[in-house]
């Protein structure tokens, strides 16, 4: 390897390195749809963080005499809810709870599910059977029963809402990861790493796991929608976040009783969920591609 002139190579290299560092973000932004997803996600996050600045009213301020106003009436941008609270402000504040619940619950399920799936798929045999049979058992459990049990054992509260939804998410992740591990562990580079003397722990977490990420991300971002809506389902049982705290799920749930004559509650909270989920999913797809070093910039 002597033919190329070192000088030109070097300058090319400096450039190359810079590109490498930024390539991840560049790749992401290059994909216009993913960029749009990222934009929506960031936008929603900003709304959540700066809710007090964005909201036009105090989210819990009631005015029963002005309940269920239509959008735009009396300075209420999206109208009011059944207690006369400003719907826009509640949706803005609701972003906090919904995003936290959606993302954390999925993360919770993802962390535990991934761990179990990794172990089951990698070690196989009895351990695999044990873990996966338990997961099957958990999967066969009605979500509601699971939620009621967890919430009553752990008590109510945001954290426990997250845990309850998270637990319900575990088996799905475990399955996806296990399936992926079964194919990744057959890859030659895994054996190569073993031949270097690596421990199982290193192989699992440094090599198998990163190569299982793509379907995980896609499944994970898809699950966020489910988690946000699950929070609403928990609200139906009274197990979600408690009033007066606003969440998209609870607004949606409250709105269902006024769907015909005053659809604004269900419509706007539903739209908020829809847009966010759309954003996160598009972003997730882009993220998967960007994380894949093979995808060209």
């Amino acid at each position, binding site marked *: 390897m002597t033919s190329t002139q070192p000088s030109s190579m070097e300058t090319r290299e400096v450039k190359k390195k810079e590109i490498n560092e930024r390539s991840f973000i560049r790749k992401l932004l290059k994909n216009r749809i993913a960029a749009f997803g990222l934009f929506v996600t960031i936008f929603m996050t900003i709304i959540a963080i700066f809710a007090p600045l964005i909201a036009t009213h105090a989210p819990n301020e009631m005015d029963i005499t002005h309940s269920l106003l239509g959008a735009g009436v009396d300075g209420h941008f999206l109208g009011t809810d059944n207690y006369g609270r400003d719907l826009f402000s509640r949706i803005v504040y609701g972003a906090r709870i919904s995003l936290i619940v959606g993302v954390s619950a999925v993360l919770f399920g993802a962390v535990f599910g991934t761990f179990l799936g990794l172990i089951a798929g990698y070690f196989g045999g009895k351990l695999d059977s044990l873990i996966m049979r338990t997961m099957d058992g958990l999967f066969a459990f009605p979500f509601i029963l699971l939620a*009621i049990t967890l919430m009553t054992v752990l008590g109510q509260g945001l954290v426990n809402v997250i845990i309850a939804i998270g637990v319900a998410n575990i088996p799905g992740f475990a399955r996806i990861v296990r399936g992926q591990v079964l194919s990744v562990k057959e890859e030659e580079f895994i054996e190569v790493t073993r031949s270097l003397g690596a421990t199982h722990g290193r192989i699992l977490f440094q090599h198998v796991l990163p190569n299982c990420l793509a379907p995980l991300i896609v499944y994970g971002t898809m699950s966020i929608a489910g988690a946000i809506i699950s929070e609403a389902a928990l609200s139906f049982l009274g197990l979600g976040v408690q009033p*007066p705290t606003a969440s998209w799920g609870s607004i949606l749930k409250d709105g269902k009783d006024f769907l*015909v004559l005053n659809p604004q509650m269900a419509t706007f909270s539903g739209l908020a969920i829809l847009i966010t989920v759309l954003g996160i999913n598009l972003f997730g797809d882009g993220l998967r591609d960007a994380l894949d070093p093979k995808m060209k910039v």
Partner: protein
Amino acid sequence: ACSGKKSSNEEVSSNGNENATGEPQDGGTLRLGLSANPKTLDPIKYTGVYESQIMRMVSDTLVVYSKDLSEIQPSLATSWEVSEDMKEYTFQLREDVFFQPGEYQDGRQMTAEDVKYSLERSATESAMNRLRGVASVEVTGEFEVKLHTEAPNAALLAMLTDSGNMIVAKEEVEGWGDNFGTNVVGTGPFMIKNWQQDQQVELVRHDKYWGEKPHLDGVTVKIISDPNMMTNALRSGDIDIASDVKGQNRELIKQDTNLELISKSALATVYLDLNNKKGPTADAKVREAIYKATNVEEIVQGVNQWGGAVPSLLPIPKDSWGYDESLEALVPTYDPDAAKALLSEAGFPDGFKTEIYVSEARVPYATIFQNQMKKNLNIDVEIKTVEWGTYSDTVSKGNAPMSIGGWTWYPDPYFYLYQLFHTDQLGALGNGKGYENAEVDALLNRAVSETVDQAERATLYQEALKLILKDVPRIELENTEAAAGITKKVKGFDVSPDFSISIVNPNGTNVWLEK
């Protein structure tokens, strides 16, 4: 026989269609929407109101309430007498009553033996104890029975109107065994033809029914558990009567020219229990402060934007003969400033933190209440929405600092005051707030054991009420209306203050469908 104060809010809901014009027409099957799935119609096993709705069509009790619940009327029993010591009730029975033909008998005549069998079965086997205190039933003639009670109980007749005490045929009960619950045979206007679990129960006319011949060929009860969907089903023509109409659906029905909303003041109250034993609310002053800081008007209005309820003041509903308007003055009135002062006096100038337990359906009350407490007293009320099982568990064990409950029963004040304020009921859901007052206990006991005279009993109850109101054990929220939506084809139907659905009833109801 009894007579009582008739007090109904006919003017509030004048749109009952009893006075519909035209000659009743025979024929047709009525489709009735019911909000929950009946599980068993066995009188000693049934637990839910929705079950009794069907049972009432299939079978009869000895006595029934009049349409407005003001008095008890004959049904299978033509007349009755109460002994001096109030421990013996003698009933004369109709002689023209036949059971519906079934698997184990072919429609034989009902006799005193059947009454004895059915009532003793209820008194001894039923876990629900719908015939509390009946010691035995004696057959004193082919069509005469005598009930012996352990202690005087003026509310016995009211209890006898319960579907749990309907008369059934022994052969059928024993023949079906565990499956009797889905194959009930009674003496009523309709009999079960087909039952699809969670879906519908088809009833057809019983041709040898002793009463007025039903106009309808049959009734199909459709189970629709979602109240919004019940209204949708009514609007789309799937059903003729929606038995459970609330909130926005009232408006939807009103707006629909083919439909009619019937709404009437009913024997239903919603109240907010304050824990009388534990926490800051153990102090009556604190309770009073909270009452004064509660804008009941606003809560009722906020929850019922489309009507269907009025603020209530006393622990018994207005339609009960025990109600006394003069007592309303004893109820704390909304006065946030006074409330604030009172709370400071009680040692909580800056408010405190507490919890309120509610089932999902009552969250709106709690939400507005929470807002008022924060605003008026700086009390932080954390809402704990729990589903029913947890709710009843927590509240009956006295573990809820506050809770919101509802109560619906017969017009007899006994069913409101004894169950909710008597020391005997500590540990049950009714007195989960932990109200204890020996004087009240004594008065409540006297009201059922001294006399069956309604007026005398009413006085005793009013005495008790005075004492109760002084202790401010709970906050009265609303008096709920009974409401139903019907298509205009349905004639002769009205809602009942006790939420029972009458299609054909000895009290004079006989619904028909316009062709």
